[in-house]
């Protein structure tokens, strides 16, 4: 996969539209869902998604695969997206990766939804953004602690601590909502 992706990156650097279309189709779903998990808004996620894909092209000459996982193309693109999403969140003055707050779970007010998936999504949005970002990158994107740390520009211990707290907080939220785990 890495070789195929490297070949596509090489072609993209030459300005090949087909290469971009293939990279786009590979990253579309994971990236939009990652951004949605961070931003909690479909509209904002779509906006930042587009910005990420265009920034990818503008900065493609800065990307050089060095052979380590921290520098995988996917992690590189996710980092661009994450930074753009952080900028967006910072406009709301929300504190991000500098420290990980513990969340006291009280009564949860969620919109009543029938679909379990949507309901869980609503509950996930109650997690602090940093925790749901870590959890998404770990569980859904199956990235290593190293890769997550590289994407979020933080150290591995912050990632481990964040993941631990995310699971604990989510467990409390789910139990509080009457969802058995």
């Amino acid at each position, binding site marked *: 996969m890495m070789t195929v992706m490297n070949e596509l990156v090489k072609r993209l*650097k030459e300005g090949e539209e087909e290469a971009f*279309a293939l990279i786009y189709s590979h990253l579309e*779903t994971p990236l939009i869902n990652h951004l949605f998990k961070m931003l909690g808004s479909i509209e904002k996620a779509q906006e930042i998604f*587009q910005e990420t894909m265009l920034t990818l092209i503008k900065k493609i000459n800065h990307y050089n695969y060095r052979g380590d996982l921290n520098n995988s193309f996917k992690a590189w693109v996710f980092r661009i997206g994450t930074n753009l999403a952080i900028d967006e969140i910072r406009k709301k003055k929300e504190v991000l990766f500098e420290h990980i707050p513990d969340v006291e779970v009280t009564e949860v007010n969620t919109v009543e939804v029938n679909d379990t*998936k949507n309901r869980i*999504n609503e509950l996930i949005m109650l997690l602090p953004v940093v925790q749901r970002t870590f959890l*998404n990158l770990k569980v*859904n994107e199956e990235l290593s602690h190293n890769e997550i740390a590289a994407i979020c520009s933080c150290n591995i211990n912050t990632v481990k601590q964040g993941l*631990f707290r995310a699971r604990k907080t989510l467990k409390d939220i789910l139990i509080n909502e009457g969802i058995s785990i």
Partner: protein
Amino acid sequence: MTNHPSLKQLQDFFENEKSNFDNDQLKKHLSGCDKCSVILSEMAKVDILFSKTKETVEVTELVKNETLSKANTLLSQIRSAKNEKVERKEKRIEKVTNVITDINEIRRNALNELKLPVLQAAAAMLVLGVVTEYSRTSIETEEYKILNDEVTVVYSELQGDMNEDN
């Protein structure tokens, strides 16, 4: 194993990350420890629930088309820039080739006619001056190297001639 593993060690084990805790020892501990097994089981259940939201959102057709359209404009600019760069390089190579031709011309016609060592040296310095000035303006390292090599050859030949004359 008498002591419980730390939560960090359990998490590392759960996530298959490198841990300083011996996995076989930990597995053995888990087989006899309900408390630790429950912690791991809860981690797994939370992750399973979380993973149900993996593909919640899709990029809308409108955003997709707009992104691809804007991307194609950018890519077209990249291709144009690349073509311009190639053209510039070709022009520079042509210039360098012309300078080399001129140097050879000087070597064949003018320098060989000069008998006085002082004049030969002056002519060589003139050639060097032209090349140095030319390299200062726009040519790339690789092209300069070709020129420099050429000048070195001319200069060596001149020195050889001068020595013979002396």
